[in-house]
């Protein structure tokens, strides 16, 4: 590794003529999981999502190459491809961009071809069709630090001669070797200025996998490539994690552990944060005159927004866990284990990856379905993804569980009742997703079994940097949501709770506009055990689920009877147990997220699917909440 910082760059003879047109766009292309997005982040200084499984990037992303002081150049990050024959939706995106057929994305003038040096022979198969495009190309051999550490050898100069393109050794994670990219780009002033005419020599017949492979094998042989020893550690880990008995057991232990941690560490943090925010609110509004303004700021906005904000610790803990799963490479193994279950419902294990990442958020998960090759399978996965318990449901569940479920422990303090209830809600969502997928796959989306082909990446230790970036980004999204959507909703609610004036004074809450609206819809939700305030909460939560908690904070804060109580206490006295459990079940099933509906509309190219999804999930949520309320009231009411 001593020579990690000297970057051998083979540079063929200088261009014979220079085009006047300047270089503008550069594309990053390479096989799946070869580290393109990590490199993209290095070159642009942006924070594109990266993780350790094939198919993380599913659409083209553009950024200015600020990381190497070339702000004038636009870099396009593309989904990974094995060849230029599209096999799935994400690969089609890459191929269209490369050919300049993607609306809104300029045709690239130069190409950075990223190849994972650990598996060079196979990765070279992509070099042939990419070089044949005739665009100025530099080949970046990524992960060379790992390759050398494991005893691999490659001669970049020979490789450059064989390919007729410059070759550089880089490590995207460490950020070494990137100056070669700058040298390459400075040398190329415009399209068609270079090898386009003396294009790739000795390239194989394109479109034939076998001849391409033979060519790639010859090239790697000639360049003295010695593949590094395969990572024995990964196999040893897999021998345990894919073990017939230990594998599934460990999976369950990890899942239980996570929820236990979310409660035992997250809850006190969240309570502490809540106290702090409440004190700060009371202190800072002490300057305001006692009247409608203080009421608006403290009881309206502050209580509403902070009732959601306090759940930040739990959400970050959950994201940390999902980040570790994604970055370590375990996600692909989970898909493998789940394949058996997934096939009984007519899908394959690949559909499990988006479903698992939907525990964080359904929007990126629905995008991630692009890696599913079969169109109908993909459609079914998109339609069931919103059933998975996303992190926006967490505040609602946490609030209701803390208010209604006693904090008792079983098995000598190992498993808490609250953990069990929380897990049941997760299982319920998963079960609904599976059943719905099965219904879809055995009716309107019936298709023959698509083959299951999944590349398992080697395990990697998640880096603090990458996990930190995820948490910061997520925290920012959460705070932004609280500062915009939730703040607006709570302000509007406070206003509606205080008009129309009654004899020159503020009206009773039940006489206000919001009170009347709530009482108007109450008959529709009364069978579920909900009161009118919950009804208003359900209406506002159509925007996003966590708005529910903000609405509750504002409404109970505006009500003189509950003003002094914490939201938990207020809810506990105002809602029967049946209604509380029914409310959790309602949230498990209902589609309350405008962002998800928008992304489903985009990915399916029609309003028909999100409309169907919304209606189906609403009916299911209503029915299940009705039954739950009835059963819980009969048993414990």
């Amino acid at each position: 590794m001593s020579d990690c910082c000297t970057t051998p760059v083979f540079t063929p003879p200088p261009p014979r003529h220079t085009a006047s047109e300047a270089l503008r766009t550069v594309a990053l292309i390479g096989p799946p999981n070869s580290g393109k997005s990590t490199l993209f982040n290095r070159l642009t200084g942006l924070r594109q999502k990266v993780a350790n499984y094939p198919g993380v990037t599913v659409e083209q992303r553009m950024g200015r190459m600020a990381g190497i002081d070339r702000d004038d150049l636009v870099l396009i990050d593309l989904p990974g491809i094995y060849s230029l024959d599209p096999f799935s939706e994400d690969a089609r995106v890459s191929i269209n961009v490369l050919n300049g057929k993607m609306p809104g994305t300029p045709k690239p003038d130069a190409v950075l071809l990223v190849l994972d040096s650990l598996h060079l022979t196979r990765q070279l198969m992509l070099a042939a069709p990419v070089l044949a495009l005739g665009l100025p190309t530099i080949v970046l051999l990524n992960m060379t630090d790992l390759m050398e550490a494991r005893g691999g050898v490659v001669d970049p100069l020979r490789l450059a001669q064989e390919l007729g393109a410059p070759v550089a050794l880089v490590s995207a994670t460490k950020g070494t070797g990137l100056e070669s990219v700058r040298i390459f780009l400075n040398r190329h002033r415009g399209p068609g200025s270079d090898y386009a005419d003396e294009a790739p020599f000795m390239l194989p017949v394109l479109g034939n996998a076998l001849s391409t492979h033979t060519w790639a094998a010859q090239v790697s042989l000639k360049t003295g490539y010695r593949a590094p020893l395969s990572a024995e550690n990964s196999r040893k880990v897999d021998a345990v994690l894919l073990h017939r008995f230990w594998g599934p057991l460990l999976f369950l232990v990890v899942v239980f552990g996570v929820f236990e941690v979310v409660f035992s560490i997250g809850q006190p943090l969240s309570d502490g944060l809540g106290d702090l925010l409440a004190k700060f609110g009371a202190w800072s509004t002490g300057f305001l005159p006692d009247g409608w303004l203080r009421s608006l700021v403290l009881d309206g906005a502050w209580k509403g927004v902070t009732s959601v904000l306090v759940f930040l610790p739990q959400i970050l803990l959950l994201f940390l866990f999902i980040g570790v799963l994604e970055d370590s490479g375990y996600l692909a193994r989970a898909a493998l284990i789940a394949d058996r279950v997934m096939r009984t419902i007519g899908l394959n294990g690949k559909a499990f990856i988006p479903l698992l990442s939907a525990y964080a958020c359904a929007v990126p998960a629905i995008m991630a379905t692009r890696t599913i090759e079969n169109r109908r399978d993909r459609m079914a996965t998109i339609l069931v993804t919103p059933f998975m318990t996303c992190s926006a449901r967490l505040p609602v569940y946490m609030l209701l569980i803390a208010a209604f479920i006693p904090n008792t422990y079983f098995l000598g303090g190992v498993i808490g009742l609250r953990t069990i209830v929380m897990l049941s809600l997760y299982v319920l969502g998963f079960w609904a997703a599976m059943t719905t997928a099965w219904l879809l796959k055995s009716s309107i989306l019936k298709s023959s079994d698509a083959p299951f082909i999944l590349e398992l990446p080697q395990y990697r230790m998640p880096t603090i940097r990458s996990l930190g970036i995820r948490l910061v980004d997520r925290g920012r999204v959460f705070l932004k949501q609280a500062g915009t959507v939730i703040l607006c909703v709570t302000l509007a609610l406070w206003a509606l709770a205080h008009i129309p004036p009654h004899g020159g004074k503020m009206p009773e809450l039940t006489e206000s506009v919001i009170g009347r609206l709530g009482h108007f819809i109450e008959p529709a939700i009364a069978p579920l055990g909900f009161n009118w305030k919950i009804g208003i909460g359900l209406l506002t939560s159509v925007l996003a689920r966590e708005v529910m908690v903000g609405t509750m904070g504002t409404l109970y804060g505006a009500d003189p009877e509950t003003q002094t109580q914490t939201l938990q206490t207020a809810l506990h006295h105002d809602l029967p147990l049946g209604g509380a459990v029914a409310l959790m079940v309602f949230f498990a099933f209902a589609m309350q997220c405008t962002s998800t509906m928008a992304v489903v509309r985009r990915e399916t190219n029609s309003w028909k699917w999100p409309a169907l999804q919304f209606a189906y999930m609403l009916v299911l949520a209503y029915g299940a909440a009705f039954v739950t309320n009835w059963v819980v009231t009969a048993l414990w009411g």
Partner: protein
Amino acid sequence: MRVLSDLQVGECGILVALDLPPGVQNHLMYMGFVPHAQVCALHRAPAGDPTVYSVDGIEIALRRETAQAIRVEDLTVEALVGPEWAEAVS
């Protein structure tokens, strides 16, 4: 002649041919499943299917029905380098 799904965990074979629809076949070949490649069965999923195979230094999981359509032969010198070279090597 055996098929890939016949391999026991830990056993290796030499790939002979793929009898799959062209799209799938091409995709698999780009992933390294080409004739004369050495393929080893590494792990089975806890449910017994799919199986993880190593080919060309990477690990790929396939279901039994896909692996059944991939013909392999026993690991011999002849299978690895072809009949014309086998004698010279041995």
